[in-house]
């Protein structure tokens, strides 16, 4: 029975000029987006990889010098493009791509692509995600809006029901037919994508690549199903095809054009992040006066001095068996780190709360849900950005600590700064910067709202079909 439905729908669809144009277009765009997106990704990935290697070579080959001078010279961390990011650029064009890591201070992650672009960048980038999130729903709407109304207007719905096919069955058959047709459209692009992906998997940065890829695939499939079910439902409950189309287009405009912007803007007004200068001021103040405001830096220094002298049982710094400057610097560094962590967490919390608004709004708008899940799996969402920032900062601390420790232990008092030097072996003992992407498990946990929203939409749609299909008017 389903076979007849499917063949009928497929034939009708393929014969439909509108579908030929729209479907053909989406198909071509999808292939273009895959190839072009991959090219863009590859270009950036190569560039950053090379730059990272170059910086490493410069670090290792910096010659003999004092470890603290080397910590000032520092290191740079480039944000690698995650392997799956060619499918969804996500926030990558709007976040910085490199951070300079040096002694004493935490630098910003700099140079976003968007800053070097015209307002064009605000109109979006052609990626698989763009086509699937924005255009595919529209195609589905065009495909499905008349699915029930046409049968009713032509009298075939009455005929089917009179032959003993329940309306519920009709709806379910329609839904499955369309889901197959949609699958036919987007599967080729995914096949190309997977070839591109697994061809280079030996160098892949991302862990759980296969798992992420297939989770992404099923998330998008669920997203399409939501639109198919929604369209069939609206078609079933509309009097005319025209009404169904108008309503569905209204839904699309609301979901894809109006709401995403409005949500992000409202969230931004709800939770305010500090300006950069405010952030810097607070850090400076807290480092100087102490985190609680009662522990100024000179007092902290004095206390450390007394404590160290007592520990080694001597009465002056010159008699210490260790280099006190190295120790003081490391202790100071750790204090600053504490302050920085505290403030940075606050900012992150503000942004996470802002983003939470969009996440929860996924329950109203499936686009917001899939957008979040897709970015997360592609490794281009805010969580990944924070992860990169944190790992770069940890690496900086490792580097600085290594330099300070060496200075403390090996740079004996009495030797001038310019006379104490370490060389290549020491530089090499700092492992190269490597950034591990979040695991599939972590991503799922970070995107629970998005996944839940997709599930609610998906199951809610089917529940409506099951419980309300009997109330559809047949004539």
């Amino acid at each position, binding site marked *: 029975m389903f076979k007849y439905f499917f063949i009928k729908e497929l034939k009708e669809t393929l014969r439909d000029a509108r579908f030929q144009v729209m479907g053909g277009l989406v198909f071509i765009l999808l292939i273009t987006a895959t190839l072009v997106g991959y090219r863009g990704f590859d270009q950036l990935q190569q560039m950053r990889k090379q730059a990272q290697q170059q910086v490493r070579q410069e670090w290792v080959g910096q010659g003999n010098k004092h470890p603290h001078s080397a910590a*000032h*010279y520092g290191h*740079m961390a480039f944000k690698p493009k995650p392997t799956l990011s060619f499918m969804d650029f996500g926030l990558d064009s709007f976040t910085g791509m490199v951070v300079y890591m040096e002694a004493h201070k935490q630098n910003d992650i700099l*140079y976003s692509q968007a800053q070097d672009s015209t307002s*064009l960048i605000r*109109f979006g980038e052609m990626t698989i995600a763009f086509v699937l999130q924005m255009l595919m729903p529209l195609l589905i709407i065009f495909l499905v809006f008349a699915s029930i109304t046409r049968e009713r207007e032509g009298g075939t719905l009455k005929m089917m029901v009179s032959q003993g096919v329940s309306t519920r069955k009709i709806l379910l058959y329609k839904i499955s037919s369309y889901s197959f047709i949609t699958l036919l459209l987007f599967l080729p692009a995914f096949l190309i994508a997977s070839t591109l992906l697994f061809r280079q998997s030996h160098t892949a940065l991302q862990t759980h690549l296969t798992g992420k890829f297939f989770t992404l695939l099923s998330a998008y499939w669920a997203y399409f199903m939501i639109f198919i079910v929604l369209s069939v439902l609206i078609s079933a409950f509309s009097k005319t095809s025209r009404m169904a189309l108008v309503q569905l287009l209204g839904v699309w405009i609301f979901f894809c054009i109006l709401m995403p*912007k409005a949500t992000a803007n409202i969230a931004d007004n709800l939770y305010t992040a500090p300006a950069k*200068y405010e952030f810097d001021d607070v850090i400076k103040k807290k480092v100087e006066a102490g985190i609680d405001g009662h522990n100024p830096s000179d007092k902290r220094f004095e206390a450390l001095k007394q404590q160290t002298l007592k520990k080694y049982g001597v009465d002056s710094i010159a008699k210490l068996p260790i280099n006190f400057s190295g120790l003081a610097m490391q202790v100071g560094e750790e204090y600053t780190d504490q302050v920085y962590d505290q403030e940075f967490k606050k900012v992150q919390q503000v*942004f996470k709360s802002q983003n939470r608004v969009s996440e929860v709004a996924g329950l109203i708008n499936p686009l917001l849900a899939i957008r979040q899940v897709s970015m997360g799996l592609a490794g281009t969402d805010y969580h990944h950005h924070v992860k990169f920032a944190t790992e770069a900062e940890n690496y900086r601390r490792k580097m600085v600590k290594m330099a300070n420790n060496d200075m403390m232990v090996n740079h004996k008092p009495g030797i001038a700064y310019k006379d104490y030097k370490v060389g290549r072996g020491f530089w090499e003992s700092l492992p190269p910067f490597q950034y591990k992407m979040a695991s599939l498990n972590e991503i799922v946990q970070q995107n629970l709202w998005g996944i839940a929203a997709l599930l609610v939409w998906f199951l809610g749609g089917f529940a409506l079909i099951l419980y309300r299909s009997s109330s559809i008017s047949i004539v």
Partner: protein
Amino acid sequence: MKKLLLIYKFEWKNLIANRIMVLIFLLLILSGLYSIYYGQTEIKKQTTHIGYLKQQEKVRLDTILYRMKADTSFKANKAAFQRAQNPAQLNRFVKAYAINPPSPMASLSLGQRDLQPYYVRLDATGFHQQMNTSEIKNPLKLFTGNFDLAFVFIYLFPLVIILLTYDIYSAEKEQGTLPLLASQPLKVSQVMWIKVSFRLLTILGLGLLLTLLGVVLNGISIAHNLGKISQWMAIISAYTLFWFALMYGIMALRKSSAFNAITGLGAYLMFTLVFPALLNIFINIQAPPPAKNEMTNLIRTRSSKQWGNPKSWVFKDFYLKYPQYNDGDTLNFYKWLYAGYTITDEKAQEVNGQFHRQIQKREALGKQWLWITPAVLAQEKLNQVAQTGHRAQQQYLQKAQAFHAQLRDFYYPRIFKNKKVTIEEVNKIPRYSTQEVKRN
């Protein structure tokens, strides 16, 4: 003329009798009002920050004056007094903000203002070194963009235009009223023209209304910004006309309502979503954004060499280029520090020139292809009027650099000639003037 008014009257009655259309218009006006409110809050945040920064700048100058006037017979005061007099230390303490204040129309089209820095803290040390900061911004917010009035015009107006025009002719045909219409003394094509012109005037009127609301609610002075406001209206009108012309062309094919609606929407999709997205990636592949990390690398390498080499390493280059500062001193710490800043900054300037050329190449590519998408074209023009686009940012950065040169001209002669800064001279320290921006 009488007939024209008669048809307009009936069209108007038709329009307000149609509940859905009235609802859509209300929604459009509400979106417009929200966008005005939103643009206002964004710009207000920026002006509050700017106000605070200006005040901070003043506080610092006052502190300097206070320290210079203080009784130096106290030990603590004396040290502060000496620091205040030393040009090298004074420079680091004062710092000035080069500020890009929002232009009067900025809140209507926020453009790149949320993406780009609008204040930089500057002193006479290396310019490019001081530019390496970024604002704390939620990338998701930057990604979704702003719900400003320009967005309402560029994304929402075309949708309403499509809705208003797709069935002007076809509905008469589909309802069977076409023969009736044809039997009237007016030609069918004339009636169609009048109907289209009625809708055009309605939309243009709405555009004018929203613009005026935006102007009034933001307290933008009409008298001072008449030129800007009329430019804005001209862009909106041209963009609206484009969509009407397109829909008229589709109508002229005399196909069904469904065909018109889908073709119109297809065009909308192409112009506002597909073409811009394709163009974006095309530009990125043809002329990728400059690898600005080279700047960071240059600065850190130079700085490491400066500290790792004897002082003469810097002075050799510096005195050759700036013989006016050469008094044979190759030991002074501050002279050595500031000489190094200048030499590094000059090298950085060369690298920056390369970046600039690459960015210009990107801009040129964009300009060359922008005509394929009127939506982006209109956005660019609106940003130009509001002075919130990429170009305005470049101009601001140039101004900031010119200001930095002023700072250098003030401090460097004093540092290299071993002069103290006197209390009278504190008022001569260059301050960034935003006046010129307003006049433009």
